[in-house]
């Protein structure tokens, strides 16, 4: 983003507002309540030493807390246990319901609290503080609904997730079941995707009636499959805990009079370290800044209308109104305009400028949109073509061209969605964005060299997953902040180091390769008619263990130098060896 800043360096007000930022003030806050079963069954460990359902749930909650802090720290989260011995809730009107965290944005303390509930110790802590007792889901649901209504902020998206391993919470008490269903029915607006844990869970016994119908009937299948593994559970919670927010609702114009309503989404976007905030020294409260314009001569405050904008070219200052500067950027109204179609192979891999968008129909805005969209998606995919569109994001933004690449829905074995159906919008570069490079003319590799490299590639091949790498910069930043937040006095004590997966595991790689690396190098040097020195390859080559230890007494060394029989068994390059020996000789000649 350095260049971006440079572009706007002397003009704060020109820093384009973050294009992808969703206006939370308008939209309200998201909220999420974890309603977790705390009965004895939840604490039973799996047969193969698998963590207990309770433990797994706490790990999930922990990861949601920390990811909320990183990606959306304004969202509200609550943690409520049911089936407890102790009761703790705002008015203490509900029995066997323990509100561990009421609805609030998560902070360091809460992260630590949840951390404390993990593992063996966590089970003990849970037992001591809450214990396991009778189950009354009705009361628990009531309590949760009160949590929502107690919040003074405007809530945009309310979710409640139930974690349990018991498919008959009331052990066949029909009256209670009925009441719980009724209460869940009352909560329909807000509730309830369900996250149940392993062990032959039969949804039809009770929970199918408690879960509110999904946004769309097709989603039904996704949620009813019980979910046993921690990874799966975590993934599903992640997919569900965030509200899909469209950054724009636009018309996809296929031609005159044919406007399909679509939503534009961001499914991948670089999460950056947040900016620091300024605090008042005396009370550590955040301060805000105000920018004012003064007239240098008169000292009077200037209104924006008292200013104009200027650039200087060829010694001439060119002045425009601010409105003119804005309107220059305008080409067409916001929207997507279909230009035509191209075969997929015309989409060049290296034509990449920024993260892609995701386009999905908005049936609620224009009825019929989903049908055209689906037909277009299907035929583009089957015919292996992409749609080329002109894209104007907001008023007064200049157009960019997008390749709309069809993406059909993909499900995993558990019927969970891996790829959502829709078009990926790939930004295409203009002529200005492509740089001409002079490629060096160099010899190419022989088949033998290529084959040897293939062996190396095979040895080091792995299954890449896009969610496999955490950002070490962010992780370290938040790890420190968490520690500092809990104990401001002792930042030095933070010894804990994050595991950085971006650093190559050199030892492992070396081990895997064995002699292959050397063999490849030998091939490069013997087969290529090299005029150049070998240094670059041998410098780091060999590794310590390959170098035989040369140990001799100074006298012996001196004798050898005099006889001129000094030899190293080490493969060092000519110059290096020469230098070494020269240095040595010089030293011993003294």
């Amino acid at each position, binding site marked *: 983003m350095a260049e971006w800043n440079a572009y706007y360096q002397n*003009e704060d007000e020109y820093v384009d507002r973050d294009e992808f930022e969703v206006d939370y003030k308008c939209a309200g806050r998201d909220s999420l309540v974890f309603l977790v079963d705390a009965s004895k069954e939840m604490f039973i460990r799996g047969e193969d030493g698998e963590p207990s359902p309770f433990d797994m749930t706490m790990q999930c909650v922990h990861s949601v807390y920390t990811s909320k802090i990183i990606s959306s720290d304004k969202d509200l989260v609550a943690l409520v246990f049911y089936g407890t011995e102790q009761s703790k809730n705002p008015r203490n009107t509900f029995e066997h319901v323990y509100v561990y965290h009421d609805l609030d944005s998560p902070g360091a303390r809460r992260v630590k609290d949840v951390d404390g509930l993990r593992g063996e110790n966590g089970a003990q802590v849970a037992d001591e503080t809450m214990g396991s007792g009778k189950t009354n889901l009705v009361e628990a649901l009531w309590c949760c609904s009160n949590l929502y209504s107690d919040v003074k902020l405007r809530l945009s998206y309310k979710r409640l997730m139930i974690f349990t391993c018991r498919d008959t919470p009331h052990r066949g008490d029909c009256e209670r079941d009925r009441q719980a269903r009724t209460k869940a029915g009352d909560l329909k607006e807000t509730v309830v995707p369900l996250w149940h844990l392993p062990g032959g869970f039969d949804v039809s016994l009770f929970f199918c009636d408690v879960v509110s119908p999904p946004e769309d009937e097709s989603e039904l299948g996704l949620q009813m499959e019980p979910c046993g593994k921690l990874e799966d559970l975590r993934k599903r919670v992640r997919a569900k805990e965030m509200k899909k927010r469209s950054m724009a609702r636009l*018309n996809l114009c296929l031609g005159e009079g044919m406007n399909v309503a679509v939503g534009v989404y961001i499914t991948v976007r670089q999460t950056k370290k947040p900016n620091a905030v300024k605090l008042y020294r005396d009370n550590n409260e955040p301060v805000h800044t105000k920018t004012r314009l003064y007239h240098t001569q008169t000292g009077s405050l200037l209104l924006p209308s008292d200013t104009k904008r200027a650039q200087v070219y060829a010694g001439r200052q060119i002045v425009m109104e601010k409105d003119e500067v804005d309107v220059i950027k305008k080409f067409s109204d916001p929207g997507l305009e279909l230009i035509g179609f191209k075969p997929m192979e015309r989409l060049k891999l*290296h034509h990449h400028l920024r993260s892609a968008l995701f386009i999905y129909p908005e049936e609620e805005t224009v009825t019929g949109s989903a*049908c055209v969209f689906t037909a277009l998606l299907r035929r583009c995919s089957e015919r292996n073509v992409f749609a080329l569109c002109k894209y104007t994001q907001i008023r007064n933004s200049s157009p960019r061209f997008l390749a709309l690449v069809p993406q059909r829905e993909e499900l995993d074995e558990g019927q969970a969605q891996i790829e959502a159906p829709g078009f990926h919008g790939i930004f295409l570069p203009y002529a200005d964005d492509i*740089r001409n490079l002079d490629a060096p003319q160099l010899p190419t590799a022989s088949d033998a060299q290529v084959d040897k490299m293939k062996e190396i590639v095979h040895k080091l091949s792995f299954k890449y997953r896009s969610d496999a790498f955490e950002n070490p910069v962010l992780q370290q930043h938040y790890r420190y902040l*968490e520690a500092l937040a809990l104990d401001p006095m002792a930042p030095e004590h933070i010894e804990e180091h994050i595991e950085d997966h971006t650093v190559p595991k050199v030892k492992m790689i070396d081990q895997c390769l064995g002699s292959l690396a050397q063999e490849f190098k030998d091939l490069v040097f013997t087969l290529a008619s090299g005029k150049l020195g070998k240094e670059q390859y041998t410098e780091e080559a060999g590794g310590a263990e390959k170098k035989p230890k040369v140990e001799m007494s100074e006298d012996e060394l001196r004798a050898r130098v005099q006889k001129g029989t000094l030899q190293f068994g080490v493969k060092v390059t000519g110059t290096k060896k020469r230098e070494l020996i020269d240095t040595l000789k010089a030293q011993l000649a003294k």
Partner: protein
Amino acid sequence: FQQNRCNEYSPGNVLVSVNPPLLEISGSCPCVLPNKDTLVLCLDVGFSMSNSATGQEPPFQQAKKVIQKFVQRQVFAENKDELGLVLFGSDNTKNNLAKDDQYQNISVHRHLMIPNFELLEEIQNDVQPGSQQADWLDALVVCMDLLQNETLGKKYERLNIVMLTDLNTPSSPDQLDIIIGNLKRAGITLQFFLPFPVDGGGSNPPHGGKALSREQQQGLEMTKKVMMSLDEEDVTGVCNPDLSVFKRVEKRPMAWPCTLTIGSSLSIKIVGYKAVCEERPRKSWSVVDAQTHQKDDIKRDVVYCLNDDEETEVQKDDTIQGYRYGSDIVPFSKVDQDQMKYKTDGKSFAVLGFTKQSMINRHQFVGTQVLKVFAPKDDEHAGVALSGLIRALDDLKMVAVVRYVYARNGNPQVGAAFPCIKEKYECLVYVQLPFMEDLRQYSFPSLENNKKYTPSEDQLSAVDSLIDSMMLVEEDGEKKDLFKVNHIPNPQYQRLFQCLHHRAVNPSVPLPPMDPWLTTALQRPLAVATRCQAPLETLKKKFPLKEVVKKKELKTSKELFGNSCLGTGRSTSLAELFGNG
């Protein structure tokens, strides 16, 4: 103007595809040539230049536009290239060679100078068609004389002359060989812009145009002779339809030397270059006082306020920094900051492993650039080693997953290095991949498994016809691409410079409308637009669309969709039309 090229400025010609739209301006890149160029524009203003077939723009106007565009580009590029302007066929005579009846009606309008807005104003206001005629070869000699005299003792990378004429004057070919010899000796390159196609010997009238006159045919022969003798490579194609003629000034690519490592024992020297990256203009707007237009009359002042009712101001010195951790705000010192920072050892391009290309999702690319990675140009061993890797990856359809660090203490990236094998070179193409924190795994309701949205066979075939009619790449023969985005100059900057130019020479006049060529360049190609009419009509009938008007959101939805694209007014009426059926 790097090579001798003969171009014409008539739109829609056969041989040369250099249309005015391609005369792009680019103020975004500074000139980085070691030495400056110098160029003389030689414009025919003789009376025949004002003649044109009905409905066509006179050659003079076309030529003037070419010149304006070119000078505009030079002004905004702010390089040190010098430029002269010679008019011939002018009513007056003003040149060093004029004597008796020699070299008459040729006027050196501007001596070699760095182009500025004054020149643009002169071209706009003072350069007008004349009533005389002059020999274009004489004009060429005047230009050569100008170059020779005014570059004496100065260093120039290139000397160029650009001729804009319809060749419609009798000219004497007896001096031609001497002129060619002088051009060669002085190292002057020559370029022609003619208002008609150049192939076919000129006997066939260009479509819609007039047949060439005898003078023009003779002139064309001479032109070809000059061009051929100056640049033998161009013999066949007198005009090379290469678009680079008015190419923007290139930014010199910044080399990023590094070492590609695989474990501790295999390292290959590499050099990375930015290959694709969003280009931004070099200059930004500054705020000036509305009355005086002075930047210095305005001072910006930032004050810090407490979040209390009075917004009490506090001194900057009384503030410290902190970071948010969810609901907590953690104050921190400089020491904390240094300790908190993730540290990297230095630049890195370290292979973490290899994976199938199919495991990398194109739509998950992140970052704002693409790097091309080569071996250093004089290192054959590195070249062979890297080539081995590139070819192995290409054969196996795999990529290298690498840790990339630009410089010491830069943030590390994980990215994919794709093999790229071209006819002339091989390289790795590096793109950044997302971190876990960057992904939003939204799930969306199924479309194809939803009965409500399942299109009928009938509807699908309507979509098929639309796709057929709107294919931008023609299947037959050469597979011509009708809409190459990577050949369109960024319209934002074209428009910006158009407006800056306009305002600079007409300070008090409202901004002009968009250049028509720019509007056209961003639209569906005419051929496609025509072809898809019928399939589009069918599509409309097969897929009824109806806008949902929610009472509450009436206003916003109007705002959002009322004017967008080609107008919802039509779509509403469409909804009415098809609402019942």
